[in-house]
Every structure is written in C-alpha cells, then in structure tokens.
C-alpha cells in the first residue's frame, strides 16, 4: 500500500523540523511555505491519499488558513484537514473551521498530539469507504468515458463519479451506501443463522 502523504502548509516550519523528520518514518511528507502554492499542490494531488496540516496566519498577499480550507472544500470534502496554529481562534473563525469539516485543531506547541492526530486521520483514510472508492475510480483508464448509465437515463464517467464522491452529493453517498450494502451481503449471504 502506498504511504499516505502529509501536506504541511505552514510558513514557519523548516524541512529540518524534528516533527517532520519523525513523521517521515511512516509517511511521505511535503512542506509548502507559501499557502497558495500549498493549495495548488493539494488540488493537483487529489488522487492521492493526503492529509493536510494547515497553519492559519500567512504573510500579506497569500490566502489565510481559513481561505485555503474553503478553497479545498469547494472541490473536495473528503481530504482530512488538521489546523495546527499558534493563533487563538475567534468564535467566528472556529465556526468557519468546524463547518468546513476540520478534523482537529491543535496548538502549535503540541507536537506529540499532532502526530497522534495524524495517525488517527490516516486510519480514517484507510477505512473510509468514500475515499477508497474515489481512489479506485482514479485508477481507471479513460476516466472521461461513460462508466455507467441508469435506465432512468443518467450517465456518468469515472470523473463524474469522483466529483460526486468528493462533494458528498446524493449520488456519491448512494454509491458509498451501495458498496457498504454489498459488503454486508457478501459477509452474511447464506449465513442467516449464525
């Protein structure tokens, strides 16, 4: 199984940081000091299993952490995002992060807690049905080619389905539910009496 990638978007962190060095034992780690470059990297690497560790404050002219999060969520609701910042959150900012599915908020001083939360997020990625369907679809050849058609007339390519799953639309959720129901069926079919 390919290693999960931890994408740090943080202008204060150095490549030589002990936190990054420790994490590299178990994960691929990339560091982006410029928030906009970090965002581009995330959006261009949707097809990988990634976890974003995001700072809030960035220099003038770059998007702030909450703006970066919003831009990620416009295209993908599945990527786990951990906020790691020395800033104290205002109520307004906290609501923004919570409503945009931030997985954890960790103070910058808590390095062990960050590693623990990254491990928990990685576990979630590995067992999350939607994420794994997304990755399977990403591996298909000709992702623009029609993959399925319903007899109500709806047709979708792998790319359409990836979008539905990432945006957690009804279609994406239905597909996730179908896979879960198949799993239950395969586990229990013919075994009504345990």
């Amino acid at each position: 199984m390919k290693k999960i990638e931890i994408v740090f978007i943080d202008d204060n962190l150095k490549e030589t940081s002990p936190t990054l060095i420790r994490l590299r034992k178990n994960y691929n780690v990339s560091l982006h000091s410029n928030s906009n470059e970090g965002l581009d990297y995330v959006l261009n690497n949707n097809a990988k299993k990634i976890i974003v560790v995001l700072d809030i404050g960035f220099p003038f002219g770059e998007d702030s952490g909450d703006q970066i999060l919003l831009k990620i969520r416009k295209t993908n609701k599945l990527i786990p995002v951990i906020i790691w910042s020395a800033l104290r959150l205002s109520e307004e900012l906290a609501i923004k992060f919570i409503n945009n599915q931030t997985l954890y908020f960790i103070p910058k001083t808590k390095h062990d807690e960050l590693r623990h939360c990254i491990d928990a997020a990685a576990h979630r990625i590995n067992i999350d049905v939607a994420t794994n369907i997304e990755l399977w679809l990403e591996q298909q050849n000709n992702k623009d080619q029609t993959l399925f058609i319903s007899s109500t007339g709806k047709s979708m390519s792998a790319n359409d389905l990836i979008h539905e799953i990432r945006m957690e639309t009804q279609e994406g959720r239905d597909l996730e539910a179908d896979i879960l129901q198949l799993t239950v069926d395969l586990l229990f079919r013919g075994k009504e009496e345990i």
Partner: protein
Amino acid sequence: MIKNAIFFYYRNDPIVKDYFFKCALKAEDFLNMKEDIVKTHISDSNCNFAYLDSVEFPKHNIKSLLLIYSHGDAESFYKTGDSCPFICKKIPNESSIKGGLVYTNACKTGEEFGKNIVAQDGSFYGYCAEVKIFLSHEEHFIECDNYGLFRLVQGDTLKEAKNRAKEKFNEKIDLLTKVHPNSVVAAQLRKARDNLVIYGNLNNPFL
C-alpha cells in the same frame, strides 16, 4: 399458456445505445426455444400511441407476454430523444394484459406501473428502483435482466423465476468480487437483485 409475445425496445437509444436492443435479442433467443410463440417486435419510431392503437394492438386481443426493454420511472416506461419521445403509463389493450405478463428491465416501474398491470388482471416482473448499467460490464447486466425470462421459458412460475434470477445475480456478484474484482459494478448488481419485484399470478407457469 401464453402464445403471443410483444417486444418493446429501441435499437439505438441516445443514452444506452444498443443495450435495450441487445436485451431484446437475448430474450428472443430464449423465446425461440418455444416454437409455438408468435413474436412481434415494436421498436424505435413505432413506439407511439397512434401506431400502437390503430395498427398493432388490435392484432393482439389475446393474453400476451410484453417484454419491455426501456427507460422507466415509477409510473411509466418511456423512450427518450427529441425526434419521437414516447411515454406509456398504461398498456392500452387490456385484453393483452389480462392473464398476461409484463417483463421489463425499466427502472422503478415496479412501483406504480407494475401495480397498475395487476389492476388490469395481469402479472409483472421488474425493478422497483433505479438500476444502473455499467456499459463496461453490460454482458452481466443483460444476462441478469433476462435470466428470469429464461427460467419462465423453462416452465418456472414467476416466484421460482425470481428466485432463480436472484441466484444468477449472486453468481455474477461473486464473480465480480472474487474472480475479476470490480466491487462498484457488483454493488449495482446487488442493488438490482434486491429491487427485483413480481406481482400478480406468482404460482402458475406462463410459458
């Protein structure tokens, strides 16, 4: 026993292309095992009420097997396309329905459309939910869509045919989860299997 079969399908549907046509061909292969069944094909632009009412249905005043390979919703089966759309909520010729059987792969028709067939003293075999077809694996969907018909031709009752069709679905699901893994496709076959419904005369053979 039913001696008259009427096929409804579209050879080149704008959405599913020749899927319905292939289903109809497969069904015809099965019905050819019975030499005494008269078969009529109604396809493409002939799927319109003017043609059906004035030309086709008057010829079929006996109980019939109506094989409908089409798009569908809860209340109707329908044909798409700008040139000649067609929506059928009720089969106009009651004498072909009475004692007869509607066998269809049209989505959701097991909801209201199928129940209306029973109200006309007919029987129904079809799906009560949206059924997705993976064109990359269409052979499995064609086989499962038609397996109930194959069993009916073998003399099964509607109830037996449905149970055998579910076994065929299971066989395909197992194939797609163990031998040639493709769980997304298998998940749709599972969904189709669990939304297969039958109404009407369940315990006597039709063919």
